[in-house]
């Protein structure tokens, strides 16, 4: 078993090098190496899943310095297993899909190398035993994300987006890095399971747990594209859509939730869950409302990702590990499906992202439309799709826990709005009449095997998984999961969902002209602009980093350095020049003047000696 886990962690990195090196010979080799490897990973994970009895642990000593040693062990339990299934399964489908999606690109070896590198980082993250290993995976993944977002680095937008992605997440990561040191100090270990136990049993004081938990939460929020770090997630859409699907829809962004889930006891002991719930509830609302008005489909999906991951955070924050992780798993599948579906649309329409130019695409892209509809239903929370169950569980727990009306309200509104924006998106793309005839006529039907098959698998999965939600929840918490019962919740929620869908149907299918009129209203227009720009969070952060950090702080430091510290040093040159010029005047070049010095000296000497002799 432990060999298998080592294989899981190491092989993607090795394969990444191989794919890159041999891909130079023929691009197809790079693809096939990746395809075979990811398939083997998935099979290996399935094997592990079916043969799993107890948590599997591999101890590796990384390094030892002074009296301290830092291990980098591996640990697989139910939580990791769920994540591994998601990563390897979706990873395989994504690579398979890439065959056609990336077919035209000259840099395929690099692409597959990065992708495998990413999968390796993700597997390392979810199977790490200690925070050191987790952080390594965390950062490697971040690097892969950066490189893949900037995959088309010769263009301005992807290059800029990569910078944002790296720096926004890094701003969170430093808190995780700091908590490595803090936990080493307070807990004496980096083993996450041990830390959980220590906190639960009160060995770590709850104040410490609270602070460290908040630190880790900041990193988690950064990585998961949550408020206020979400702008990078929007910009990340500049990368290839396969990357958006796998990294920024289904896997990497989940790692923030994973780490909170992994340290769930620690968070509970430190009373930090309320903070998680509060920030996340805000994220649910901000994401969902912003998604309502976007015109690019990938941006809709990105905001939707933000909103849904926030929902998962809320699930954890209100104290239900099962609900949060269930939603994470379900979301991973349907979001990957939707992203890849959007990718299929883009592939068929020559990379068009603006939904207002589509319309009526369900005819040429029938399969894609069907599968995306299934994904949309799951996302919107329609039973029996899996999305319904987890969302329902989160709603129920939130209401039952009642951390405050605002949290509950924001969560419910945001969660329900998902049906609105996804309906809007689907209608704008697939229904109605084509709005851009030229584009419509040029649509190519994508390959069934390479493109539609993975979509189909995911669509079926998101449907089938709906029937196994109880089992999934039991598996995650290794106990019987009991959902809190709220009277009349189901009919109310379903009613709200259906009426929201109806409203969207009315506006975007029947009376599209009304939408344009509405937006022209001054009040609506300003709200629309706020939402379109994601509440201007990015603009504020950009202003802060550019104007405060660089143009003020760094500039002041530089000014001090040049005009004070260095000026003092360089000033010695000028000062000695001045002194030199003054003193040069003592050299009058007249012999007579020189004797003055002698008389002075002799006088001084005699005086001193006389005084000295008297004394």
């Amino acid at each position: 078993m432990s060999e298998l886990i080592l294989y899981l962690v190491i092989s993607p990195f090795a394969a990444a090098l191989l794919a890159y090196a041999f891909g130079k010979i023929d691009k197809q080799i790079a693809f096939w190496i990746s395809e075979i490897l990811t398939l083997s990973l998935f099979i290996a994970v399935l094997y592990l899943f079916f043969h799993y009895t107890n948590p599997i642990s591999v101890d590796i000593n990384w390094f030892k310095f002074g009296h301290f040693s830092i291990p980098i062990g591996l640990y697989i339990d139910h939580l990791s297993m769920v994540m591994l299934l998601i990563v390897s399964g979706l990873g395989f489908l994504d690579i398979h899909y890439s065959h056609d999606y990336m077919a035209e690109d000259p840099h395929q070896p690099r692409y597959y190398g990065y992708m495998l590198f990413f999968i390796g980082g993700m597997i390392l993250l979810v199977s790490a035993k200690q925070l050191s290993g987790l952080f390594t995976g965390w950062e490697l993944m971040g690097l892969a994300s950066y490189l893949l977002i900037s995959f088309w680095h010769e263009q301005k937008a992807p290059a800029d987006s990569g910078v944002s992605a790296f720096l926004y997440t890094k701003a969170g990561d430093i808190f995780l890095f700091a908590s490595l040191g803090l936990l080493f100090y307070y807990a004496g270990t980096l083993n996450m399971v041990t830390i959980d136990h220590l906190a639960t049993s009160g060995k770590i004081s709850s104040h410490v747990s609270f602070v460290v938990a908040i630190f880790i939460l900041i990193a988690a929020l950064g990585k998961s594209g949550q408020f206020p770090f979400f702008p990078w997630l929007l910009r990340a859409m500049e990368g290839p859509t396969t990357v958006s699907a796998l990294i920024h829809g289904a896997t990497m962004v989940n790692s923030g939730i994973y780490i909170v889930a992994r340290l769930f006891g620690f968070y509970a002991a430190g009373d930090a869950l309320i903070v998680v719930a509060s920030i996340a509830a805000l994220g649910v609302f901000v994401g969902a409302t912003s998604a309502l008005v976007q015109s690019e489909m990938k941006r809709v999906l990105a905001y939707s990702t933000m909103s849904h991951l926030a929902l998962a955070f809320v699930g954890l924050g209100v104290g239900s590990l099962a609900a949060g992780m269930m939603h994470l798993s379900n979301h991973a599948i349907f979001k990957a499906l939707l992203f890849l579906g959007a990718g299929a649309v883009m592939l068929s329409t020559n990379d068009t992202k603006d939904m207002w130019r589509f319309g009526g695409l369900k005819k040429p892209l029938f399969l894609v439309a069907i599968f995306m509809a299934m994904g949309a239903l799951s996302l919107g929370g329609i039973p029996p799709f899996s999305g319904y169950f987890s969302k329902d569980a989160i709603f129920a727990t939130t209401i039952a826990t009642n951390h405050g009306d605002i949290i509950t309200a924001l969560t419910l509104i945001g969660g329900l709005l998902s049906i609105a924006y996804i309906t809007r998106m689907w209608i704008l793309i697939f229904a109605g009449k084509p709005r851009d005839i030229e584009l419509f006529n040029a649509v190519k039907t994508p390959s069934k095997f390479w493109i539609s098959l993975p979509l189909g698998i995911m669509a079926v999965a998101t449907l089938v998984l709906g029937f196994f939600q109880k089992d999934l929840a039991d598996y995650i918490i290794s106990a019987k999961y009991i959902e809190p019962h709220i009277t009349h919740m189901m009919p109310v929620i379903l009613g709200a969902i259906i009426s929201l869908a109806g409203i969207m149907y009315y506006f975007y299918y029947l009376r599209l002209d009304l939408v344009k009129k509405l937006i022209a209203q001054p009040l609506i227009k300003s709200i629309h602009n706020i939402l379109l720009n994601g509440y201007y969070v990015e603009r504020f952060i950009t202003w802060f980093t550019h104007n405060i950090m660089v143009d003020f702080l760094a500039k002041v430091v530089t000014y001090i350095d040049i005009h004070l510290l260095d000026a003092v040093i360089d000033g010695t040159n000028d000062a000695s020049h001045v002194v030199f010029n003054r003193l040069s005047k003592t050299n009058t070049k007249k012999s007579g003047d020189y004797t003055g010095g002698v008389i002075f000296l002799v006088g001084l000497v005699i005086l001193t000696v006389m005084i000295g002799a008297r004394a």
Partner: protein
Amino acid sequence: MSAFVLMFFATLFSLALHRTFVFKPFVLLMIVLSGFLIFLKTPVLMYGFAQSSATNLFLLVIFIALLAFTLSEDKEINITQSLFIGAASVLLLRGTTLLTFVFSFEAVSIISFAVVGHIRSSIQADGAVKMFISGALATALIVLGLALFTFGGGNFNLSLSNIHFNALMEVGLWVMLAGIFYKLTIVPMHSWAADSYANIKPSSAALLSGIAKSVVFVAVLKLFEPFFIQTLHVSIFILIVLSVLTMTLGNILAMFQKRVGKMLAYSSIAQAGYMLMVFIAVKDSYAQIGLLYLAIAYVFMQTALYLLLDNIGGGISDITLDDVKGLVKKDRLVSLFFAIQIFSLAGVPLLAGFMGKAIATYAVVDAGYWIVALIALLNSTFSIGYYGWFIKNIYFDHSVKQSRVISVSTSAKIAQIILLGGTLFFGIFAFAVFHTSFCSL
């Protein structure tokens, strides 16, 4: 026959050999023979003279420097005069009484005037006249001091040890020291040196500043040591002020000079400050060895640099920094000589200058005046400013068209190799100095 006698007669005889091909070989032979006599420790055999291993070592160093001078110099009269300086040095370093000191000091001085008498331009005339006037003044002060000393009841035909000094004797000795300090370019009596050393023919400056000055320094410490030890409680303040002033002023004024000769002249003043600093620590066991080391190093460095200056300029005294720009592209070897001797002056290790400065500074630290040592060391940092600038002109700059630098003869290069050897030897093999002492043999 002692080295003094041999050198004295060689001086006279060499006059007869001028303009013959045997002149240089004869002079070289005489110097080598005298060095050999020193090595054999042959005494002067007159009253008031005694030798010690330290002075013998220093005399050997002087003779090696004279050897190099002879090889490098082309003016025969200068060589003859340099022989006389050698002869006088023997007396000066071996003298044990005030009388012998004054006598041989004047011998060195007189020949100094003769040396600078070689005048080819108005600049050199200026330097020579200032030299003469200052020398006369110094002599007057020395004689005045001697008179006061005698007036106070001192006997100038004895050494200064075991004497109780009364106030008049002290004043007399101080007046005498004022005259000597005048020659040693101690601030505020330094200005003449800046003009003279820079204006006279550089090879003459090599003799005066490189050899004569260090000989006088060692002789002063040797003779006046008992006096300084007895009166240190009075004189320490003066000595500290004078040495700090001298080194600081010398370094500052050397900083932005355009003429190489002037820069070296001020650097020589600064070096005098370092040497005077040792007198503060006169009670310390490292004082004598420190001064001796400084003087030995100084003989090699300063002589070599002024001779090089003479060689590349063909005897003119106003070579500027612009002239030496890009020298390395014309002659790698000469540039290397310059660089190493300059680094030695700057106190870069494994060269004699460093050891000299280090031991002298340590003597001061050992005596408890670490602040003075700190000032000296900071001064050394200061001096990097112009030493480094000089190196920069040679190595980092491109040469200018109107450079007056000429090529250097082989015998001059051999002379430089001898001096370089000295700088390196005393930089590494410190035992040569450490194993000597000033105790009479």
